[in-house]
């Protein structure tokens, strides 16, 4: 049986992130909260969604910068855990995500007698950042699952980020570009569902790439 061929090819794009500093810093959790209410949404995005872009090969302690700072720099493990469980994709938009982070910190502080802060000399302040993300066409276009699988092994992990995270987080798509194409073009809804369950906030981008290849291999074996 011949392999399903897509009418519309999947065109891999990748990206390059250029981080930019906002000149704002927080030394304690109250300051973090206050800045969080004011910083541009791009900064919320940088410290949550695109955090995984900076943990491509090796996942960090927590999948977002706020949780990592609270746990490591302030040594407030409770707040680190509360923030660490946040999945950016569960929020309709960045304002909702901002509101959730602010509320979590506010609730946490309400239960404490003093505001946790970094100890001078033993912890780093939180530096607010944002970034410019340049989207770059790779020139790689595929029409079959096998071509898709082979391309995944050679493209850089920025492409995985772009089609998985930016597609949903910045472009507001319901699911990742990979899952959408496999479902709509290759008519493989089961594989699309499996791909849709991959979470870049629980695994590194390199792990996701490997998992995507494995899922494609399994589907090809079954065909």
């Amino acid at each position: 049986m011949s392999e399903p061929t897509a009418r519309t090819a999947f065109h891999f794009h990748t990206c390059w992130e250029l981080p930019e500093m906002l000149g704002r810093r927080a030394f304690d959790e109250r300051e973090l909260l206050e800045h969080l209410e004011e910083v541009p949404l791009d900064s919320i995005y940088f410290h949550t969604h695109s955090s995984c872009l900076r943990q491509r090969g090796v996942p960090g302690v927590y999948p977002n910068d706020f949780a990592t700072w609270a746990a490591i720099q302030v040594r407030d493990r409770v707040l680190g855990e509360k923030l660490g469980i946040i999945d950016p994709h569960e929020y309709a938009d960045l304002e909702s995500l901002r509101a959730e982070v602010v509320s979590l910190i506010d609730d946490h502080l309400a239960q404490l007698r003093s505001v946790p802060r970094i100890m001078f000399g033993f912890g780093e302040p939180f530096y607010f950042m944002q970034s410019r993300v340049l989207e770059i066409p790779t020139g790689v276009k595929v029409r079959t699952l096998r071509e898709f699988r082979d391309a995944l092994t050679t493209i850089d992990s920025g492409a995985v980020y772009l089609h998985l995270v930016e597609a949903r987080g910045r472009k507001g798509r319901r699911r990742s570009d990979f899952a959408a194409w496999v479902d709509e073009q290759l008519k493989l809804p089961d594989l699309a569902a499996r791909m849709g369950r991959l979470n870049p906030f629980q695994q590194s981008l390199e792990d996701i790439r490997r998992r995507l290849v494995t899922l494609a291999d399994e589907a090809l074996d079954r065909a």
Partner: protein
Amino acid sequence: MSEAVPTLEDYRDVAPPGTVELLRRLSERVRGRRVLHVSTSGKVGGVAEILRRLVPLLEEAGVDAGWESLDGEEAAAQVAARLHTALQGDEERMPPETFDDFRTFTRARAASLELTADVVVTHDVLPAALVDARPPEGVWVWRCHLDVSRPQRRAWTFLRQFVVKFDAAVFSLPSFAQRLPIPQFLVYPSIDPLSDKNRDLAPSEIDAILAQLGVPRDKPILLQVARFDRFKDPLGVIDAYRLVKRQHDCRLVLVGGAESDDPGGVELSADVREAASHDPDLHVLELPAHARREVNALQRAATIVFQKSTREGFGLGVAEAMWKSKPVIGGFAGGITAQVIYDVTGYTVNSVEGAAFRARQLLADPELCARLGAAGREHVRQNFLITRQLGDELALMATLLR
């Protein structure tokens, strides 16, 4: 002997998959555009070392890349050195004539340089004043490689009047950023995996170099490579080693040295040598700056690498060690915290005891060493190789010229 300059293609096997293609695609955005880098020196120092590799790669990527330096006058070098140390927090008072000398020198050099380009990047202090002679066209970027997180205020106020005339600034760490009315980008420094300091070495080559240096390989080696100044805390490393030594037979190798014009460093160097004189397992090696292959071999032979600084710029020695799959125990300072992921690629510590505890833990658990080492190499591959820095430079150009 100078090293051969690698081509972009040479990095294909060491950079993350797809990187070379990505860089070629990214470079299409700025192909044919001219970038001019201006550094204080074209021969010595970290900036010259970076540009020597980066400029040919930019050219290969299709950018019309140029590099000018302000070499030439001893007096100017002294002015630059004074400003550097003041900007990095040294409390020595800057005499007013330093600022006058600075202006006089840079004004004269500006007249002799062709400063027309789509993007002009001036590195650190001395070339920053060239911005006063900027032509109407072109984007100007101030690239600061210094730790200016706690500058001497007078020195920073002087420099700031030039910096605000740029279109953007680039720093190596978020903590170095300043209150400025221009965009401030973050570009981490990088290591070159193909340089003599970082390229793969055959086991026989490592053995031969260590034998030559008089370091036996009969027991685990703890290593710190850093000049002898108090911020690098070599005496703290020795104390930590002694705590480790109570439970694990090992050697400590300190590679460093002190500048002859730094009395504190010379005194510290003597203290370090004194400590080593009573212990045959403690080796103090003062190697010249060009002994890159020797440092490479020592890092590869080590079981654990320390970078126990109490104050640090970026501390690229950490990335060098991690690239060689070594777990790193680093001080909680400067760029070390940006490189070491706690319990993933190594540990950051705040005390001698903390350093000793983690070293004991690692020596007792070779699997932990291997896990942290492998993660460290991958972390460097993704974040601290020169290919990433090249991409940042191209992205910066593309962003500013958009």
